[in-house]
């Protein structure tokens, strides 16, 4: 019978993969995508507990997480556009000066 542990294990794997993605990939967009992955893992976790505890607040929190993720993605992509306009590159390494 699938218990919360299974879901937790899955969310853990997804979280770790997302984390690796953020740290390893040089492409800014891919990094954002990995970030989205982490968000999903968190949601999965919340839902698992919400199901297990029979308490809706888990789902409410997941909704909020999704909205924040959306906002975050918007901002991230805005950044990418600004970056590309400035540096014509999307590789994170080149963006290493604070000056514009």
């Amino acid at each position: 019978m699938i218990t919360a542990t299974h879901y937790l294990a899955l969310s853990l794997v997804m979280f770790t993969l997302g984390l690796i993605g953020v740290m390893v990939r040089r492409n800014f967009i891919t990094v954002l995508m990995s970030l989205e992955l982490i968000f999903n893992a968190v949601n999965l976790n919340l839902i698992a507990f919400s199901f297990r505890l029979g308490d809706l607040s888990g789902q409410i929190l997941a909704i909020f997480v999704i909205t924040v993720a959306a906002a975050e993605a918007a901002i991230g992509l805005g950044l990418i556009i600004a970056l590309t306009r400035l540096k014509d590159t999307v590789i994170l390494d080149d963006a290493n000066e604070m000056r514009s």
Partner: protein
Amino acid sequence: MDFLVSHFAEILFYILAALAVLGSVGVITLKNPVNAALSLLGTFFIVAVLFVLQHAEFLAAVQVMVYAGGIMVLFLFVIMLVSVKGLKTQAAFLSPLVPVAIIGAILVGALITSAVLLGVFATGDGGPEALQMVDGAVLGNTEAVGMVLYTKYLVPFEVVSVVLLVAMIGAIVFGRKDRFIEEQEGEVGS
């Protein structure tokens, strides 16, 4: 066959889990960002299904609409913008840091699991059914969520809306071409 039937739920979960993991790995390893985006899209869908399994139907819907529909479209749009400008997108990995990152991630993962394992033993008073009940009448998950959202969690709801607003403004500011940046470039050039 009865094995399949009796264990249908477990088998379904394992398949979905495997697919989710595969999708995640794809997001990380695929060189071309478009392929990665698609793999991410797949992962979103798998997660939505999992939500359904967990009686979080409203959430699954929201997941599909917001994530898959909204954010993925945004990503693809930006990817297209980037490839139109012909920016170099190869050299995907930071070779020296790969092992460090992996170890780090596993470490964090191990720590979180242990936290979670400890949490597993937490027991709630309600069962899975409670997810659909509103004042004792099983209405459905969405009604239950709406009821709770607009009563108990009204303040956070408002706060989140403000966050969204701020994000929009930010995105607009980044997005449009305004005089400020030209001046910078003009100044730098002189």
